[in-house]
């Protein structure tokens, strides 16, 4: 297996995530896209680890951390979404543009 095949795959997933981030109107879907991006990063990390073969499995540990943080972030993010929805009865991100000129 080539290293690059993983990397390119991860790149593609990351690109999808970016697209989703910029296009989706629903806040939840935006968060979903973010998860996609994080996942792409994980693939990268693990792929690198398999190439580097460090004695401490650095890449994999890093990937674990990423997963953990992502989970925490989702928790908070959805809490916020909840609050927004409670206040505005809508999860549409376009309507959240109060801090504008």
């Amino acid at each position, binding site marked *: 297996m080539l290293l690059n095949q993983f990397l390119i795959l991860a*790149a593609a997933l990351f690109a999808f995530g970016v697209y989703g981030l910029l296009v989706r109107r*629903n806040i939840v879907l935006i968060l979903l896209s973010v998860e996609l991006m994080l996942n792409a990063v994980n693939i990268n990390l693990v792929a690198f680890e398999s190439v580097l073969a460090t004695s401490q499995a650095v890449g994999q540990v890093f990937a674990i951390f990423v997963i953990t943080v992502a989970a925490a972030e989702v928790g908070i993010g959805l809490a916020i979404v909840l609050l927004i929805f409670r206040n505005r009865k809508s999860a549409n991100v376009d309507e959240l543009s109060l801090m504008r000129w």
Partner: protein
Amino acid sequence: MSLVDWVSEPVNWVFSAIALAVLFSGFRVVTSQNLVHAALFLVGTLGGTAALFLMLSAEFVAWVLVLVYIGAVVVLFLFGIMITRAPTGLDVGLDADERLVPAILSAAVFVMLAWASVDAFGLREIATTGTATSTEVIGESLLGRFVVPFEVVSFVLLAALIGGITIARRDLTPVEEQERLSV
């Protein structure tokens, strides 16, 4: 290694299959017009990713992925979707109107990353070892070299926990406030 060599290895067929699945799922995550479908396609992506991890001998990470990500995060997403009473059916207005620029940007991102990778690593190969990375190694690493980040992450989780509760809590009505104080 040439393309012929690559194709001739069975590992790569498996890889290709999984990769396609992952890509497709990922694509559908961002383009699906159904909220729940999008979440479920994420599950697919994550599952495929886990399979890829297994191929890279990262067993522990793979199962952590499944457990945490699919088991908790996606479930959380579904909770969130439900609670926000988002329309669970088809929703035409899920995407923004302006899609060209994001498309270009994401394409640019992909091109840049791909190019960088190819430029840096060329045809470097991953040695497929039979042995998976043992959990012991990861454990030692977590509590050895990465003990500080480990502890910090536990704080992060604690903060997320408390923060989540605090943010999502319903404000007490004045009546309830009075009751609480008089008690």
